[in-house]
């Protein structure tokens, strides 16, 4: 687990071309560790593969995982389920950067869902940009 997971460095430039009356408007901004959110692509593996889990049930389960490990402070973390596929039980989550380690640890350590063995697999993590495809 990486405790310094909230790293991202980004730069933005603006350059209006062809404006001869003004000095060249060129702005360079460097942001370091500035990403307010992190994105996790996770998949829920269940012992009984025929179990259906709706998006609301998944969100409630994630909150209960957070409460189990980190108590009410964990349960109060803002976690968004951006996208969820009921067929593959995979979801795209968004969390505040300061809560990433809490969320990740509580998902990893969760071992049961409704009296059956389960595991969360974290497939991908991004600091700046949520992507739909995973790349090698």
């Amino acid at each position: 687990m990486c405790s310094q997971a909230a790293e991202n460095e980004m730069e933005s430039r603006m350059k209006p071309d062809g404006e001869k009356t003004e000095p060249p408007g060129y702005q360079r901004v460097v942001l370091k560790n500035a990403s307010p959110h992190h994105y996790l692509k996770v998949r829920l593996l269940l012992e009984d593969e025929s179990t259906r889990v709706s998006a609301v049930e998944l969100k409630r389960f994630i909150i209960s995982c957070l409460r189990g490990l980190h108590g009410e402070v964990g349960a109060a973390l803002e976690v968004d389920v951006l996208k969820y596929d009921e067929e593959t039980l995979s979801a795209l989550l968004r969390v505040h950067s300061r809560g990433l380690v809490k969320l990740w640890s509580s998902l990893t350590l969760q071992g049961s869902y409704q009296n059956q063995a389960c595991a969360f697999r974290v497939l991908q993590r991004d600091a700046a940009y949520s992507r739909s495809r995973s790349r090698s």
Partner: protein
Amino acid sequence: MPNGHLVLSLDKDTFEMLGFEGRPSRFNNRTCSRFVVPVDLTDSSMAPGGRGYLRLNKVLRSHLNLQMDFLISHHPGGRATLQPLLSRYVWSEHRPEVSRRSLSNLVCPDLQSCDPLSLLEWLGAVDADVSCENLSSSFLSTLICPEPKTTLSQALSMSVCGLLLPQDVQQLVEQLRCYLQQTQKESWASVTVHGFTDSPVSWGDHEHGVLTGGENFYNLLMFQDLTYRLHLATGAHDACPP
């Protein structure tokens, strides 16, 4: 790399067996377990038959029992040059996967003034087909489009996945610029290019670390009046992009 340097990222055992000069990776976590070996292939001793070439060839072939797959891309018309090399190995051809999606009634922020992180988040949400039309009190997701926002009647999202050459990207950008100049006011185009997250180098010849995310991409947002915004992103422990 384009400057003729071969960069090997090796674990400790392989590095010691190779016996080449290298330096510890910047991304070692306490223990020194990974090394970076840069080899200058333009050096005179690296010419076929040269001293450096023979040594590198010998250690890579005999000391290390490595088997790996290579991704090779060629310029238009370069197939004939590759043919003698390919004929000695088992190979298969992969074409870039292209997918396209028409978007209608897309809620869009003010791209000129939007802050970069919100802008990239919104672009990512569009790419991943995530809805931004949530209420702040919504249980599932509180992701919303940054204010001020407008609604676009139609837009097109395309994605190409494969090993693309910089020339391909440049050609795409030039064509998009031509297209923008011919279209109506307030059009824009955005191109996002992702590098491999586990690539040993990112910008220039600076070392790139995966850590947990391996961010390695840039985004070019072009407007009709030829202004643009360029966003370059990489992991925070990497060197700053140029």
